[in-house]
């Protein structure tokens, strides 16, 4: 089962690289925000898979929940920055 989780994590890592391309080089700010947000959700799942691999999933659930909360707040703040045209 560990091998399955490792390959699943590698697949997600490949998707993170694709999102990173859109987040760094993507035309416009909106593409960048969407790319960063997608990277956040994928990182959350990778953290949970790491928890399954190390058999300590109850610790990694805490970390991934914090990651999800901060990702949500970051996206809201970036959207607010766009709405107010540089006024935060």
């Amino acid at each position, binding site marked *: 089962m560990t091998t399955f989780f490792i390959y699943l994590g590698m697949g997600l890592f490949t998707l993170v690289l694709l999102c990173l391309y859109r987040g760094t080089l993507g035309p416009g700010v909106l593409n960048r925000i969407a790319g960063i947000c997608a990277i956040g959700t994928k990182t959350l799942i990778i953290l949970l898979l790491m928890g399954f691999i190390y058999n300590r999933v109850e610790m990694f659930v*805490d970390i991934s929940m*914090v990651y999800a909360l901060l990702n949500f707040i970051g996206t809201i703040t970036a959207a607010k920055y766009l709405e107010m045209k540089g006024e935060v």
Partner: protein
Amino acid sequence: MIRLTDDIIIRTVARILIPFIQLYALYVIMHSHHSPGGGFQGGVILGASFILYLVTHGLEEAKTRMSEMKAGIFSSLGVLIYSGIGLLCLILGSNYLDYGKLSAVLRVIPAQARSLGILGVEIGVGIAVMAVMFSVFFDIATGGELKEDQE
């Protein structure tokens, strides 16, 4: 100046989510012996909840909950709790932040005194980090232009 957002979905989601974020921050601070986290991480989550309130509900309403003066007082209070516990250990005849001697004050065995002492230090760090994070975001968002009567 941050205004109240027009979107009712954002406002409602933030209003429902903020108490759970704060409860989770208290869990991270209190449960730091057994799981990842601690005073700094819990303080960051607690500060993030205030930042979410400031972003979604605007500057005027956020100032009634947490003003700039309150943030300054809380940041000093956190450092005071941290250094106060350390100095209490020093006064009781031990090293700085050596919680074993606190057992004389708390009337428990030294192992429990160490656990309670480090919990107090984590609470102080959490309060300080929360207030400083909010204060930094407040200053960046207003561009440092705060009138005197607005605190």
